[in-house]
């Protein structure tokens, strides 16, 4: 049977490095990586796929996504609406041709997930249901209660088991890419359970390693969200694009940062300040609505809501909680226990377990927390980077659909739309390429091995890793928060430079091989410092305010389309801060306009439609 032929054979042994030969290597086993693996397997079952992940795939952070995935579903909706919501939501920093492809493919890929068993919540007549989400004109968010990411991830993981050509390297930690003849030809990874090195050759490589939000302190993110793939590509000369745009989610649990999904508001929840006042009406999102109205009030975009929180805090209108600090209230009481248990069971459970609050009886204290990395590895509309044969998808990539602010529920869809596309593209390319030059690749792998081993074996260091990490996350929060100032951003840039130096003097407690997480966390911290630098330096260079990048200083408080309707591009400079350049933004059918929500947004929509007629 052909299946047996597709199984891997353990090939020759290098010097301390195991070698596997694959056709397509995928780094990252979250939603995007799994979708890409399935796409490769379906497009050509004879291709050998290596799926490398530092955690078992179902632990990947896709699992924590709650609200849902956007795709046009209703009769009264259109691809054009989804397009305009996305481009406007991204403050016109989107690649519009890519967004067009994205909205077109969204319903197709979400339907495919349904065929694979994803338990989307249904209407009474058995069809897939949709819910409203922030910044979306029409309801189009497909959801599986408030565990949409969990169900998507498990559906994809379990479906991937069907394909014998997908060979998983679970709990393998990727430390470098292999580059030869101007092409990416594989990766080097540590088998975490043994501490030994494996070289995985591939004619094409897809990065699907997720975001980098863990460089901030208070975040919704899992410990694994450390920007590994971004740093890997960055160090090989690929640009990190739009890294200054970090999304603050407006409704997070104080201190831990755990997420209360936007669906809380989609289902009708209110945000109120210490006076019980729905303060969003003061920030261009009104007038007040009784029922959830798309693009009004609580259904505004995340950047605007998080910024409104900041202003409320400045005005002294937030609630000062003895433990949680400054918070506002997410009020779900009027929705009733039965409805909350049906639509938001995880939220209910989290409020009870983590905060001792019954959301049907008490409002939930919330504040903004870091949630999503809009920027990432720069790729073209086919997901390929400037390094031939290297692709990037999902949160680690910047394919251009999120611009300066992602709309909630676009990123889960991104995983499957671009996972599929990258899988198909990487498969096609792999079919046409000869096998790599193994001895030369092995030499590179051994160099990487020596470099990474040195981090563990060296002695005499004095810096404690957790100290450096704490200083990094604090500094990022201070300098690159919801609102930014030249001076504090400069401090952050300086601090990161200092931490880069101090990292060289790090000392590890654990020098062993088996399951040495002390060592792996140090490699992650090394990645994080690179990515944090790209963020801080991109931020200080963007002298305007757009989407999630808002400045309070001088002349930079407004959007400046003349000088900054451009993508920032951070390039790695060994031993120094990154170099920041700029690239054009692809505009097809939506010229930049004022970004308005609430009644003002509706008026702007009407005017635009009138001018098109």
């Amino acid at each position: 049977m052909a299946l047996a032929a597709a199984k891997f054979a353990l090939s020759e042994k290098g010097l301390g490095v195991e070698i596997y030969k694959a056709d397509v290597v995928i780094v990252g086993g979250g939603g995007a990586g799994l979708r890409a693996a399935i796409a490769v397997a379906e497009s050509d079952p004879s291709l050998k796929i290596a799926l490398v992940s530092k955690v078992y795939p179902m632990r990947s952070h896709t699992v924590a996504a709650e609200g849902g995935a956007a795709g046009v579903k209703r009769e009264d909706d259109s691809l054009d609406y989804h397009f305009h919501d996305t481009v406007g939501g991204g403050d016109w920093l989107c690649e519009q041709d890519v967004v067009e492809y994205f909205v077109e493919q969204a319903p197709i890929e979400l339907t495919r997930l349904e065929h694979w068993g994803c338990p989307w919540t249904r209407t009474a007549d058995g069809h897939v249901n949709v819910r409203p989400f922030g910044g979306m004109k029409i309801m189009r968010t497909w959801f599986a209660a408030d565990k949409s990411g969990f169900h998507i991830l498990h559906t994809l993981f379990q479906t991937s088991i069907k394909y014998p050509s997908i060979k998983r390297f679970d709990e393998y930690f990727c430390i470098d890419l292999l580059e030869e003849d101007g092409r990416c030809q594989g990766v080097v990874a540590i088998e975490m359970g043994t501490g030994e090195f494996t070289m995985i050759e591939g004619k094409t490589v897809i990065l699907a390693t997720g975001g980098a939000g863990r460089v901030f302190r208070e975040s919704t993110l899992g410990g694994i969200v450390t920007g590994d793939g971004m740093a890997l590509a960055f160090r090989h000369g690929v640009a990190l694009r739009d890294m200054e745009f970090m999304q603050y989610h407006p409704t997070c649990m104080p201190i831990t940062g755990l997420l209360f999904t936007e669906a809380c508001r989609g289902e009708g929840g209110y945000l109120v300040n210490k006076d019980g006042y729905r303060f969003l009406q003061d920030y261009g999102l009104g007038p007040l609505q009784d029922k959830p109205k798309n693009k009004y009030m609580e259904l505004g975009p995340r950047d605007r809501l998080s910024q409104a929180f900041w202003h409320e805090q400045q005005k002294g209108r937030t609630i000062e909680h003895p433990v949680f600090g400054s918070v506002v209230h997410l009020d779900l009481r009027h929705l009733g226990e039965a409805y909350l248990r049906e639509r938001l069971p995880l939220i209910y459970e989290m409020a009870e377990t983590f905060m001792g609050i019954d959301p049907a009886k008490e409002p939930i204290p919330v504040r903004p927390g870091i949630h999503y990395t809009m920027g990432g590895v720069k790729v073209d509309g086919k997901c390929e980077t400037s390094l031939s044969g290297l692709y990037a998808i999902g949160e680690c990539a910047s394919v251009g659909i999120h611009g300066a602010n992602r709309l909630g529920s676009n990123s889960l869809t991104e995983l499957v739309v671009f996972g599929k596309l990258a899988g198909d593209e990487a498969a096609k390319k792999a079919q046409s390429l000869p096998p790599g030059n193994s001895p030369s690749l092995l030499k590179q792998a051994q160099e990487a091995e020596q470099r990474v081993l040195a981090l563990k074996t060296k002695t005499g260091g004095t810096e404690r890793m957790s100290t450096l990490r704490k200083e990094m996350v604090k500094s990022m929060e201070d300098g690159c928060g919801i609102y930014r100032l030249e001076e504090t951003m400069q401090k952050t840039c300086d601090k990161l430079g200092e931490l880069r130096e101090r990292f060289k003097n790090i000392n590890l407690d654990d020098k062993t091989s088996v399951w040495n997480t002390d060592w792996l966390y140090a490699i992650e911290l090394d990645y994080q410092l690179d990515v944090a630098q790209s963020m801080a330096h991109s931020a200080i260079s963007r002298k305007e305010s757009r989407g999630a990048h808002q400045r309070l200083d001088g002349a930079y408080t407004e959007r400046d389309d003349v000088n900054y309707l451009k993508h920032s591009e951070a390039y790695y400079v060994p031993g120094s801060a990154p170099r920041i350049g700029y690239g054009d933004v692809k505009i097809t059918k939506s010229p930049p306009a004022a970004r308005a929500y609430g009644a003002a947004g509706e008026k702007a929509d009407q005017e635009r439609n009138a001018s098109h007629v």
Partner: protein
Amino acid sequence: MSEQKIIEIEVLRYLPESDQAPHSEVYKVPFTDDMSVLQGVQYIKDNFDGSLTFRWSCRMAICGSCGMMINGIPKLSCETFIRDYYPQRISVEALAHFPIEKDLVVDLSGFIEKLEAIQPYIIPKEPRTVEEGEYIQTPAQFAEYIQYTSCINCVLCYAACPHTALSPDFIGPGAMALLHRYNMDSRDGGKAQRMELAASEDGVYNCSAVGYCSEVCPKKVDPGNAVNINKINAGMDYFLRFLSPKGGAK
């Protein structure tokens, strides 16, 4: 901030490159009332001993990484709070019934093989193209399987089930719940294939209805129920095959 208190956390440690067998170490950890046992263990790693090893990620009881025996009971350490034990000492140990790789990390490869063995994917009853849209699934059909989709693969149920250690090939509660999940899905037609495994030597009859698996399940999947229902199903299949040429399974 609430005042700082100190909790004693006793960790069963095992360093395979130097220890012959696991040994206990006690750490004194300052904590606040919002801190989970996971955060306590993280505090030890950050401040006392970087070699302490455990899996974790999401911190919100959905990724399934951070299961540990906490005072002898399998729990997700991220949603277990130090305040509920204070001032008593907390003991933390790797999940029972699995081999310990290092400290709190266990070998999950056996579980993963079982998960792969149960064919955890839709084997379509009536294949459908994307152009035809989604399958229609009534609320009643949905209710048949949805509970069993909630499994986060945290394997607490395996740490609760003595049979998974006494008969290591037993498919076990979590994987059986998943098997049942696909069998009950109206889109699926693969029940007969999966029941072969459920009824086999490694299948449901290894279970003696201890019931602790369902007790410890953090997501109320009730895996023990899935196992026991399939004892009935497997039994029916066995007898019905004498009556019908096609066998009992649909």
